[in-house]
C-alpha cells in the first residue's frame, strides 16, 4: 500500500470521506513535529506558510525549518513556547479529508484533550521511544477511553534515537495495548515512527523492515469512519420547527434537526420525549430531497403523521427503542473551569437541544487518571481538569442515554446560570467500558 500524496484533482476530490481525529502527547514527545510532518509531507503546507516557518526558524537559530512552528497559533503561545488550546488543522489526500484537533498534552490541560476527543473518531497517542509508557501516556489513553473514541493509534516516536530497535517498540506496544484493553478500548494500532526523520509518518521507513503495518497517514486514510448504523437506536433532537405559513405551504410543519444516532425511516412509529406522545414518520426531507431513510449525522426535516405538540428541545425516537426519561442522572464528568464544582450547586444542564435547571446532589468520587485510576471518594469539590462521578437531579425529565450507547445523546454540559460559563462536560453512566471479551475483540470499534 502506498500513500496518496499526488496532486489533487477535481475527480479525486469529489467522493472522499471526512475523518476527524485528535492528537495527544506531551510537549517533548514530538507531537507538533508529527503534525507538522503530516501537513508538510501530505503537501498541505503551502509555500507562504513554509516561508514564514523558515524565517521564524532562522530567527530562532535553527538550521532546518522547525515543523513544530507550523502549528502554534496565538502570539501568547509563541511567546511562552507552549500550546494552550485546541487548534484545528485541515489537510487532504486523494482518499480523505482530515480535521485534526491538535491538543496540548500538558497535565493541566486535560480539558483540552477531552474537548478534542469529544468529536474525534480516532485518537493518536504519542510516546517517546526512549521513555516508553509514562504517566502522561496513561492519562491520554484514559481520556480516549472515557470519551469512547472509536479508534486509538499508539505512535511510538523517536525510533531513530533507539536505533530503530524492534524490541523497544514491541515492549512499549505490548504495555500500552494491555493498559488500553483494561480500560475497554476496543482497538489499538501501534506504529513505530520518527516524526523528525519522517519514518512511517507518510512514507514507509527504510530503517524498520521488521514493521509490516501501515504508516500513520495510510492508517488515517483507511480506518472506517462510520459503522453499520442499522442496529443503533435512532435519536433525533428537535432543533427548530419550520412553519412557512405561506400561500404555497399553508400547512407545512416540519421538525428540523441533525440525526444524533441511528437511522430514521418513513412509516416508522416514533415517540416524542419527554411528553411520550406517539405518531408515525410521514416524510423525511434531506435538505431539499425527499427520502425514505436518513441516518446520523445527516441534518434533515421530519414530517409527522399527526398534529401533536413538538417543539425545540424534544427528542424523537422509535417507539421500540425509545430511551427512558429521568430526572436523576449519574455521570462521569470532566470539570472544565477554574471555578470548582461543589455539592448543592445549582447549574443549567444542556442536553441535545434542551437546557434545564439541575442541582449537584453528590460527588461520589474523583478518578486519578495518571496512576492506577484510584478513586478519591467524596471529594469536597471537582477542580479544573478533574475527572469524577457526579449525581444530578434535573428540574424536568430528560431522555438521556448511556454515553457508551450514544455519544451525542449521552453527553451534556453544565453551565453557570449566572454568567453562562461552560463549567463541566458530562457523560452519562460509568467511566470505562468493561474489558472486552475475546470474541468481541474482533469487532471494529464502538458503534455510534
Amino acid at each position, binding site marked *: 500500500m502506498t500513500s496518496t500524496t499526488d496532486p489533487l484533482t477535481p475527480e479525486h476530490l469529489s467522493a472522499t470521506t471526512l475523518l476527524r481525529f485528535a492528537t495527544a502527547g506531551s510537549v517533548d514527545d514530538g507531537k507538533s513535529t508529527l503534525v507538522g510532518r503530516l501537513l508538510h509531507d501530505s503537501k498541505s503546507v503551502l*509555500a507562504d506558510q513554509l516561508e514564514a516557518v523558515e524565517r521564524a526558524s532562522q530567527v530562532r537559530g535553527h538550521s532546518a525549518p522547525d515543523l513544530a512552528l507550523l502549528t502554534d497559533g496565538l502570539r501568547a503561545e509563541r511567546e511562552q513556547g507552549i500550546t494552550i488550546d485546541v487548534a484545528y488543522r485541515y489537510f487532504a489526500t486523494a482518499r480523505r479529508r482530515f480535521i485534526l484537533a491538535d491538543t496540548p498534552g500538558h497535565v493541566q490541560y486535560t480539558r483540552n484533550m477531552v474537548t478534542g476527543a469529544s468529536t474525534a473518531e480516532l485518537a493518536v497517542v504519542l510516546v517517546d521511544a526512549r521513555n516508553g509508557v509514562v504517566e502522561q501516556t496513561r492519562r491520554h489513553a484514559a481520556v480516549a477511553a472515557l470519551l469512547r473514541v472509536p479508534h486509538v493509534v499508539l505512535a511510538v516516536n523517536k525510533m531513530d534515537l533507539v536505533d530503530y530497535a524492534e524490541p523497544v517498540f514491541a515492549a512499549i506496544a505490548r504495555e500500552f495495548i494491555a493498559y488500553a484493553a483494561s480500560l475497554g478500548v476496543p482497538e489499538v494500532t501501534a506504529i513505530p515512527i520518527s516524526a523528525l526523520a519522517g519514518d512511517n509518518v507518510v512514507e514507509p521507513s527504510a530503517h524498520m523492515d521488521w514493521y509490516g503495518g501501515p504508516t500513520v497517514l495510510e492508517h488515517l486514510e483507511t480506518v472506517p469512519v462510520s459503522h453499520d448504523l442499522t442496529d443503533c437506536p435512532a435519536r433525533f433532537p428537535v432543533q427548530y420547527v419550520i412553519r412557512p405559513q405561506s400561500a404555497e405551504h399553508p400547512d407545512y410543519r416540519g421538525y428540523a434537526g441533525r440525526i444524533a444516532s441511528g437511522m430514521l425511516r418513513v412509516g416508522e412509529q416514533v415517540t416524542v420525549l419527554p411528553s411520550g406522545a406517539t405518531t408515525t414518520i410521514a416524510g423525511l426531507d434531506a435538505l431539499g430531497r425527499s427520502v425514505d431513510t436518513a441516518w446520523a449525522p445527516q441534518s434533515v426535516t421530519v414530517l409527522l403523521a399527526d398534529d401533536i405538540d413538538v417543539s425545540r428541545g424534544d427528542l424523537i425516537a422509535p417507539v421500540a427503542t425509545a430511551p427512558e426519561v429521568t430526572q436523576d442522572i449519574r455521570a462521569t464528568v470532566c470539570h472544565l473551569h477554574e471555578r470548582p464544582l461543589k455539592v448543592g450547586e445549582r447549574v443549567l444542564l444542556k442536553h441535545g437541544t434542551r437546557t434545564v435547571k439541575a442541582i449537584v446532589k453528590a460527588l461520589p468520587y474523583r478518578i486519578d487518571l495518571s496512576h492506577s485510576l484510584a478513586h478519591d471518594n467524596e471529594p469536597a469539590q471537582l477542580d479544573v481538569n478533574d475527572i469524577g462521578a457526579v449525581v444530578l437531579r434535573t428540574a424536568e425529565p430528560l431522555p438521556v442515554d448511556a454515553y457508551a450507547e450514544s455519544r451525542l445523546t449521552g453527553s451534556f454540559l453544565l453551565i453557570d446560570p449566572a454568567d453562562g460559563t461552560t463549567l463541566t462536560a458530562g457523560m452519562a453512566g460509568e467511566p470505562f467500558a468493561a474489558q472486552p471479551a475475546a470474541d468481541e475483540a*474482533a469487532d471494529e470499534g464502538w458503534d455510534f
Partner: protein
Amino acid sequence: MTTSIAPAESTDSPYALSHLDALESESVHIFREVAGEFERPVLLFSGGKDSIVMLHLALKAFAPAPVPFTLLHVDTGHNFPEVLDFRDRTVAEHSLRLHVAKVQDYIDDGRLRERPDGTRNPLQTLPLTDAIRELRFDAVFGGGRRDEEKARAKERVFSLRDEFSQWDPRRQRPELWQLYNGRHAPGEHVRVFPLSNWTELDVWQYIAREGIALPEIYFAHEREVFRRGGMWLTAGEWGGPKADEPVETRTVRYRTVGDMSCTGAVDSDATTLDAVITEIAASRLTERGATRADDKLSEAAMEDRKREGYF
C-alpha cells in the same frame, strides 16, 4: 507480531457521508441552533463567495420557510461594483432584508479617518460594532474559516464577544460534541462561524456541486492592474496607482473579495468552476497569503484585529 487488538478495515461503510455532505450537515445544524436559541441573529453578507455559501446553507436549513434573520454588509466604499451588484440581486431574488453600514459615512462626519495607505479594511470594525449594538443583534454569522489563518485555527464556532465586540481568547468556551453554548449577558453577542471546518477547496467544490452563482470577478477576466506589495491591485479611484506604479492589462481572477485597496488578483486563465478548482488544488500559496495585504501587516495581524472586534 501482533500490534493491534483488532485490525482496521479499509472500506467505508455505505453510511459514511461524503465530506461535503458532512460539512453541509454540520453547518445547517449550526444555523438551526442559532435560530432556535437567539432573538436577533444577522448574517454578514458581502457578496463574497464565503458569504454566498453561508446564505445558500441558511436557505437550505429553513426551506420551505424563508431565512428567519436579516443580512448586514459593512461597505468600505471601496468594494468592487460587480460584487455590490451581485449582493443586491441576491437580496432581491430571495426577498431578504439587508442592512448596510458605510465606512464612507464615518469618514465624512469625522468618526473615522482615512489611513495613509488608503486601506479601509481595518476601518470596518467600528461601523460593524456600531451596527451590532444599534440594531441589537445577539448573534452574528460570519464566513470565517479556521484554515484561513493561524489565529483562526483556535476560534470557536460560537465566539463570545463583550459589549465592545472584543474577543478574549481566555474567555472562549470549550466546545464539545455538538453542544454550542450561546448564553451571553445583555449587550454581549456571539459571532457564529458556520464554515469553521471548511477549507477553501471545500467551499469551491460545494459551489460547483450546488451550482451556486458567484460574482464574475472570481473567474479569469481582463483587468487593468498594477503591482504593489507583491500583489496585483485594481486601478481605481480608491488611491492607486501611484506615479511609479505602471498600469497594465492582465488576465486575472480574485480568490477573495474584500476592499479593493488591499485585495489582490492572481494571474489565472480559469474561466470555469472546474478550472478554478484545479488551480486551487495545485496552488502553492494560501488564499490570504496570496491576496490579502491586510494580513501581511504583521505575523499576529489577525489576532490583533480579532481582539478589537473584527470578524
